[in-house]
């Protein structure tokens, strides 16, 4: 009897949590398989489920979606570029700070941490002005560079934490064998840091894929936009085709969710450990 009561109590928490979590996402999915009439009728399941919305999006048959494939490509390109370059910048910095004990390393780490803690929305205005001073506005590099700036501090922090855990004897042995710093980096450091590198690369990639504010400030040519900005543009119209907006939104939300679940093991260990050090 007591067991039944416990289970009932757990369900009483679990069911509302499930509804709370899934409702907005289910609504997104529902719209994508509904005709406009069904979607606006507030039904829990459409009378005539259809894949027509996806067809319209894939064939770019609505003026809001004229550049769907192009913008999808932009999102991918920018996310991959940010992931790769952040990884490069952060790995070398963490190596210098943690393994080479480079002079000024501590200071650089503190600068990085400081940048990490300044909310990105507050950095956006000065960043916008700087990009315009550099003549990079309306150039995708502006977004890539801005996202690298935002992603690398945390990447450096996580990699530095992971790197500190590698046994120091490895470096000693490599040095005694006459290894150069470059060989130490390539042959000892990189192979051992594998899982953290995956976590950090994915982190930067997802950050760039999901970014709205910077993309919307720094890009304006229709051909350069990412999907996030294109979705935001739907909002400016009064008669937005909501079912198409939601379909595109669903397509845009799927890759990061899939990537997250595939790399969940790396992500949770690497990211939660770094986020709040006890």
């Amino acid at each position: 009897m007591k067991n039944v009561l416990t289970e009932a109590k757990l369900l009483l928490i679990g069911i509302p949590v499930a509804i709370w979590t899934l409702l907005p996402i289910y609504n997104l999915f529902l719209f994508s398989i509904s005709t406009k009439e069904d979607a606006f009728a507030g039904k829990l399941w459409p009378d005539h489920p259809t894949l027509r919305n996806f067809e319209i999006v894939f064939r770019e048959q609505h003026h809001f979606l004229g550049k769907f494939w192009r913008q999808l490509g932009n999102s991918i390109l920018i996310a991959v570029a940010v992931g790769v370059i952040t990884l490069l910048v952060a790995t070398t910095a963490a190596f210098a700070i943690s393994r080479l004990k480079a002079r000024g390393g501590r200071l650089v780490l503190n600068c990085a941490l400081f940048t990490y803690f300044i909310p990105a929305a507050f950095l956006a205005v000065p960043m916008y002005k700087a990009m315009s001073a550099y003549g990079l506005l309306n150039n995708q590099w502006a977004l890539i560079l801005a996202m690298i700036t935002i992603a690398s501090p945390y990447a450096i922090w996580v990699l530095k934490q992971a790197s500190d855990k590698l046994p120091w004897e490895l470096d000693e042995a490599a040095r005694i064998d006459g290894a150069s710093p470059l060989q130490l980096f390539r042959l000892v450091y990189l192979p051992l840091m594998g899982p953290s590198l995956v976590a950090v690369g994915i982190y930067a990639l997802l950050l760039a894929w999901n970014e709205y504010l910077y993309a919307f400030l720094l890009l304006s040519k229709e051909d350069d936009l990412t999907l996030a900005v294109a979705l935001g543009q739907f909002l400016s119209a009064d008669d937005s085709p909501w079912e198409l907006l939601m379909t595109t939104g669903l397509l845009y939300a799927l890759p990061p969710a899939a990537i997250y679940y595939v790399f969940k093991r790396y992500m949770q260990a690497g990211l939660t450990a770094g986020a709040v050090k006890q």
Partner: protein
Amino acid sequence: MSTIALPQVEAVRTAGPRKKRMSSWQLWGALFLAPYVVVFVVFVVYPVGYGLWLARHPDSYVQLANDPVFFGSVVNTLVFLVVAINLKMVAALLLSGFFVTARPWIKWLSVLFILPWAVPSIPTILSIRFMLNPEWGVVNQLIFKLTAEDGPNWLNDRWLALSMAMLVHVWKSLPFWTMIMIAGRLSIPKELYEAASVDGASGVQQFKFITWPSMRTLYLTSTILSMIWTLGDFNSVYLLTGGGPADLTHILATLGIRYLRLDQVDLAMATIVCAMPLVLPLVYFMMKRLSR
């Protein structure tokens, strides 16, 4: 680990013949550090310096103080911080207790529970925006079916709209903080709970005397970190209400961007400078904590 290793390095460094080689290691250190230093100088130091220079006119602050939208935004920001964060952190703390319960279905639920955090903001916030649409949104249609009365116009009233923005914020970030709290709970030794239940301690007593004392530091750190991030939460407000109705639901983060869009860069920077007395002490606290 590194603190133990450090003296060894010093020992090698002071050994005479190696000295020249160590300086080449230092050179490599500088080289490896260089890419990030360049990024930091070009995209953080210069923009921030330039921004502060733009914000130097006292006139900007007078203008801000005279703008009713600014005062409203400060109030909104503070309300957002106090209400949304406490709601979220308490919920995360309690839910973590639910999620560490060993049941197969809870394991599955925890996988789904991460979704709001794992997917991008835009599609889900727009989905919620439509759910709150007074005529066609599922929320008001449900209210109508149940009570035969029209639901409120959710996004057309300052406090209602701001509450909805806070709910969006909680919806989006609750999974992350719950995950952190779960990690915290899992690090508490199981024996403590076993001993407590042998002694006949109730669930509440176990929470009060075992869970809370072990989690207090983590909870405080998480709250501070969450405050910093919430101050910069542009999406929850901008994508849900756009700052409306009549610019009544802006927070400082969206207000800065609003001025920028209106080509009033001085005011945008001044707004951000005004947020600094809130941000910097929190940043200082976090940096102290992390660089220990």
